[in-house]
């Protein structure tokens, strides 16, 4: 085909293959990228890599030690087996709650992000401020207010009893419903914002092209809008699932003994029971599990670009 269209199959490589010797001034500034990286790397090294290493070490301490007597490092892999034995219910429950939370957040967040990005018009910024407005108040305070809203004598329970959805002795607090509702509420913005970023970039002319090519609104959505917003879905689900799986505030404040999540177990092992080896083993297990799940997830649903 090249005969007719020289520009289409020309030789653009020629321009880039000229060996370029950077001028002396340029070479001298090669340290600049490293200088820019240094503060962040230092911070991560001191406050992330070192603590994680410390945690991994602690998970292998001899469990017979205590805070008073001190711990000794002993390659005690049995800590992991013990931790699993004692807390696998809370562990699996956390992953399950995080999954439900993520699914509900997608279901609620996608239409919201779509409405803001595509139909928002001049209200776009105001609506976005509305999405992030909860961040102006502390996470704990907001969760406490959920406790008040869902309390046994609160308006929501009264209303549901009046509708006979809840039995006369029914309650919301200390149920799965309350914990998941709290998680959804707290993590919804983390779903909406990346979805919005991705949908806002969507060229609406592509939707016109899809309509022009015999695709009605529903088919256009599944063949054009959704695939092109997958980076946002991916980022949003990760930003929701990961912190939700490790969350302990919602289970602690809104849940009961039967809705305990692994986060609160770890918190109480560290700070109440002072059982460092088991607490550390649980932390490492949670981290590795999430890491593996995320890797599988990104491998299956991932696109080349994220957001």
């Amino acid at each position, binding site marked *: *085909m090249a005969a*007719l*269209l020289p*520009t*289409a199959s020309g030789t653009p490589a020629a321009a880039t293959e000229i060996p370029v010797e950077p001028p002396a001034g340029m070479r001298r500034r090669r340290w600049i990228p490293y200088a820019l990286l240094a503060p962040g790397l230092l911070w991560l090294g001191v406050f992330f890599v070192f603590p994680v290493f410390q945690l991994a070490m602690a998970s292998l301490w001899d469990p017979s030690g205590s805070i008073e007597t001190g711990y000794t490092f002993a390659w005690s892999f049995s800590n992991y087996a013990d931790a699993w034995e004692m807390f696998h219910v809370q562990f699996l429950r956390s992953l399950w709650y995080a999954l439900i939370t993520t699914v509900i957040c997608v279901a609620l967040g996608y239409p919201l992000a779509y409405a803001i990005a595509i139909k928002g018009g001049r209200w776009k910024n105001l609506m976005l401020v509305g999405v992030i407005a909860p961040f102006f108040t502390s996470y704990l305070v907001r969760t406490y207010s959920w406790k008040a809203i869902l309390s046994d004598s609160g308006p929501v329970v009264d209303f549901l009893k009046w509708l006979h959805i809840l039995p006369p002795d029914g309650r919301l607090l200390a149920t799965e419903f309350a914990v998941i509702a709290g998680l959804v509420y707290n993590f919804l913005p983390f779903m909406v914002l990346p979805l919005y970023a991705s949908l806002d970039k969507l*060229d609406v*002319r*592509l939707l*016109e*092209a*899809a*309509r*022009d*090519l*015999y*695709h*009605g609104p529903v*088919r256009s959505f599944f*063949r*054009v809008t959704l*695939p*092109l917003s997958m980076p946002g879905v991916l980022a949003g689900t990760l930003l929701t699932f990961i912190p939700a799986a490790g969350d302990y505030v919602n289970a602690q404040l809104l849940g009961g003994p039967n809705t305990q999540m692994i986060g609160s177990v770890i918190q109480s092992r560290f700070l109440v029971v002072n059982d460092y080896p088991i607490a550390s083993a649980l932390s490492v297990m949670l981290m590795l599990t999430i890491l593996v799940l995320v890797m599988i997830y990104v491998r299956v649903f991932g*696109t080349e670009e994220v957001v």
Partner: protein
Amino acid sequence: MTDQDLCIENVTKTFGGFAAVDDLTLTIPDGSFFALLGASGCGKTTTLRMVAGLEEPTAGRIMLGGLDITRMRPYKRPVNTVFQSYALFPHMNVADNVAFGLRRKGENRADTRRKVAEMLDLVQLGQYGTRRPAQLSGGQQQRVALARALVNQPEVLLLDEPLGALDLKLRRQMQIELKRIQTEVGITFVHVTHDQEEAMTMADTVAVMQAGRIEQLGAPAEMYEFPASAFVANFLGQSNLIKAEVTGQADGHVTVDAHGNRLAVPSARCRVTSGAALLGVRPEKLHLADDLDAVPSGHAAVRGVITDASFTGVSTQYLVRAPWGSELTVFVPNSGIANPALPGAEVAVHWSPAHSFLVGS
């Protein structure tokens, strides 16, 4: 008129009180290459989008082969569009982009694959099926957009400034290419452009639009030689327009007085026959003579002084200031004879009255 003509009948489209398209009536014959030509904001793209179904007319109706498609959803119309931005789906490769419409139409896999391959060959992109749009040049993307629309064999193909983003050389190539493809497939092409040369090169029929209305419609040569208005005379190529007053009519000619010069225009080339008018002559139909004595008999002539001469290769373009102050543009073809005329020289500008036209002012 055959069954498959596209008829736009008294169509108006207003956007918040502003009439983008104003009571437009137009018949586009089946199988023709039709160009809607106009400056930006003249309503040509809005007209196209109404035919595509992407805008709904405020009033009037659009008929395609006897079928009223005015309110038909865009995805139900036998019409496809090549968008100005190409609007290729970035998450699909070239072949999937081209197959997008066919798959929805329920074509079986083998047929789809064959048609896509044929279409990519037609636009000379046979080897590019597995590439992503982002890996193609502008011209190649343009041809994918064309293939994606054409492969559905629409009754009408709409092209919205499809060559606007290409450089001049590629645009010329694609103009010829598009024309070849249109002849080959025989589908009605409606081509929107602001480039008069492009419209004239490609289309059988050109409609010049201004302020939501059609100023003139016809074959390019016909419109160029005898424009209907001063707007068309200036928009389609260049024109020298001289203010004149009609003084009378005699044996097939209208006589005018232009700044004291008595000039005649054949009646058949007059859009107006009384009152104030503009006498027009195309620059390439003006000739230069050393003085009035050298003007061939039967030619109209005015005196002037050359103020500028620029050599452009195929011709020399002269600006000649007429006694009444305005400048006339004269193209003298470069036929190899030395042209001694230099700025400052006094000359006579002359033309055959058969080449002049008279339009309303």
